[in-house]
């Protein structure tokens, strides 16, 4: 009686295990004509999906389509990767670290992808990195910002062409000081989680170096996705600060902008929104004129006027009826960097090995829709590029958001030099910055 019960339980488990193992056993070594398989991981559900996850995923879709059709501008005009078509598999990043790591293993070991491109959450990037190294799986992070990934340890198979988040805060501080020469006081409102804490730490650190006389007044850390900032707006209204720094995004950014507008905070102090670019197409005329806008690099309206940008923003806008925002650009430059590394590593028609691609990717310099990227940090695994900040204005005649007064900062001006941790660089007075 008991035997029957337990036995059928285990039969069920056995069947499940057998079903899972089937595809793996059916695998045969890939012939040269087999497509290049890419796993694309991005938030497809949850709060980070609409501002970052889906623009990132759409950026991947449109770029891969163009690459497979061979319609991208030179030097990206070879079909797919080195003449081999790309086959993409999209996976949701939402879920616990356990889910994310399990899905990563599934992509690499079950689906046998040639590379994984993705990840927005810094926590997920940190969780995936050791697994990628252990499995020797080529992994390209496209959006996550923490500098810890390449500072904690040297990595062999993990790459990130998009610069880390230190650049965003240092760029914001440099722009603010350039525009407000006699700044005496500034405040900050950031979400109480790693991104908000890190953004503020880098910003206040950079301000201490660049404007030692300016004082940090109100330092506010409302909880993530609080949505309601009445008390914080009241606190800020009592401050004499000329500027308030925020790394809010999506719902919190929109909530804060709406709620402060009713009480005129933006008339009292300039808002510096370091990720503001990802929300301008939704906020439109609700975003106050004069807000300082960043986009985690020279992306979107801040992007340089080059052929790659014209091509990318056109194919993206034609398909999705909305201009690409910074996550789309970050995805595009990650894929284009990987493509160049792949083609540099390929000899003849055979697929290059993961080690060959990694060796070619290391230290690569290339130009994409957002300008030049130099893989110089983290032993050639972490990219730097210039950044840009600007001031927001809603063009009433054209009924379109505009970013004016754009200032560009060279890559070496806002990124630490190789061999020094980002926070130590800021603490030490940002030595070696070339502006």
């Amino acid at each position, binding site marked *: *009686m*008991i*035997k*029957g*019960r*337990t*036995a*059928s*339980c*285990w039969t*069920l*488990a056995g069947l*499940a*295990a057998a079903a*899972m*193992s089937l595809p*793996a*056993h059916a695998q045969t070594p890939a012939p040269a004509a087999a497509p290049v398989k890419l796993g694309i991981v991005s938030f*497809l*559900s949850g709060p980070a999906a609409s501002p970052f996850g889906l623009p990132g995923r759409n950026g991947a879709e449109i770029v891969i389509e163009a690459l497979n059709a061979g319609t991208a501008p030179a030097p990206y005009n070879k079909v797919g990767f080195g003449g081999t078509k790309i086959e993409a598999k*999209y*996976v*949701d990043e*939402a*879920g*616990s*670290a*356990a*889910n994310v*790591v*399990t*899905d990563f*293993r*599934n992509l*690499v*070991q*079950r689906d046998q992808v040639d590379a994984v491109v993705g990840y927005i959450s*810094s*926590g997920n990037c*940190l*969780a995936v*990195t*050791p*697994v990628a190294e*252990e*499995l020797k799986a080529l992994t390209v992070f496209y959006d996550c910002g*923490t500098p*810890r990934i390449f500072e*904690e340890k040297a990595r062999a198979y993990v790459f990130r062409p998009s610069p880390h988040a230190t650049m965003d805060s240092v760029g914001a501080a440099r722009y603010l000081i350039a525009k407000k020469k006699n700044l005496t006081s500034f405040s900050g409102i950031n979400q*109480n*989680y*790693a*991104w908000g*804490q890190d953004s503020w*730490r880098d910003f206040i650190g950079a301000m201490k170096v660049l404007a030692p006389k300016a004082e940090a007044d109100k330092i506010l850390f409302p909880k*993530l996705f609080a949505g309601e900032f009445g008390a914080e707006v009241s606190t800020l209204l009592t401050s004499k600060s000329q500027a308030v720094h925020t790394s809010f995004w999506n719902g919190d950014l929109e909530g804060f902008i709406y709620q402060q507008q009713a009480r005129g905070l933006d008339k009292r102090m300039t808002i510096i929104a370091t990720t503001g670019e990802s929300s301008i197409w939704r906020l439109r005329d609700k975003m106050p004129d004069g807000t300082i806008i960043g986009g985690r690099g020279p992306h979107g309206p801040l992007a340089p006027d080059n052929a790659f940008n014209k091509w990318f923003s056109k194919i993206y806008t034609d398909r999705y009826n909305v201009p690409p925002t910074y996550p789309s650009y970050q995805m595009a430059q990650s894929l284009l960097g990987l493509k160049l590394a792949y083609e540099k590593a390929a000899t003849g028609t055979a697929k290059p090995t993961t080690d060959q691609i990694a060796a070619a990717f290391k230290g690569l310099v290339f130009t994409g829709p957002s300008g030049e990227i130099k893989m110089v940090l983290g032993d050639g695994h972490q990219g730097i590029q210039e950044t840009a900040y600007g001031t927001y204005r809603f063009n009433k005649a054209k009924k379109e958001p505009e970013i004016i007064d754009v200032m560009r900062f060279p890559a070496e001006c806002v990124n630490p030099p190789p061999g020094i941790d980002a926070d130590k660089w800021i603490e030490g007075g940002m030595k070696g910055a070339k502006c």
Partner: protein
Amino acid sequence: MQAGAQWVGGLLLLVAAAAAPFLPNWVVSLATIAFANALVVLGLVVLWRVGLVSFGQALYYCIGAYAVALMGRWIGFTDAIALVLLGGIVAGLTAAGIGFLLARYREIFFAMLSLALSMILYGVLVKTESLGSTDGFSVLTPTFFGYAPHGAQLSRALYWLTLAIDAIAALFVGLYFRSVAGALAAPIRDNEIRVEFLGVSVTSIIHTKVVIAGVLGGLGGALAAMTIGHVDPAMAYWTTSGGFVFVTVLAGSGYVAAAFIGSLVFEVVRSFAVDVMPQLWQMTLGSVLLLTILFLPEGLGSLVSRLKRRVMKPGTAP
């Protein structure tokens, strides 16, 4: 007959362990996470038998995981077996402490209070920037009495360790269910006052169950931390607790084995839902739970009792 069940269970466990070298690595690591989480679910089953649902079991899961990770971070200690035991002990001690408070509450009050306690830990960890806040930090690669495996061997070693801990936990929880204190679960659920009149302290029985569930949660968290290789405060977040309750509903409280099967089924369904429907996987999981509640209100475990009835008494009405 009871002893027979244990022999069969043990034998099947050996089969599961022996299958490891023939399974692809990703299946082994998926099963390890499922079987580690199953320990937390087993703890919830213990509580569920007295009619208590904890929406804060992630507290012990997170404590177990952070105990492992912090030992590595602070003193570089990596012995897997000692770390798992440590995770269980630290979580058990926490449960023993807060049990004095929790054991007095029932129903929604128990659920909400346990939820509040886990969210306190979450809040503290989020504010601790030195531990990486919400980003968390990585766990050192575990070793086994000085033996330091890598790659597929490490996955297998952790899988076997998880199976061994599962076997011991299942054995003890099975024994506990058959003990007097365990057998009193249903009477307590039905009428506490009557049980008190038997001369038994209901509070202390529930306190014991809170501690058992806490130890199991800590063991599960410690094993999960080593398998994932990373810990973050989301391990204490209420959605993590909700996930465990989900699996408990899926599994049902009838059998010890159901916790393990339920957890494995959940991981497999989740993994395949993500694979097949990347944008609708949550809906798939929700549908599975809804169908389970509609057609198997007693959980997956009741499939077995239905089958058993049909086999044992053909033709007779249940």
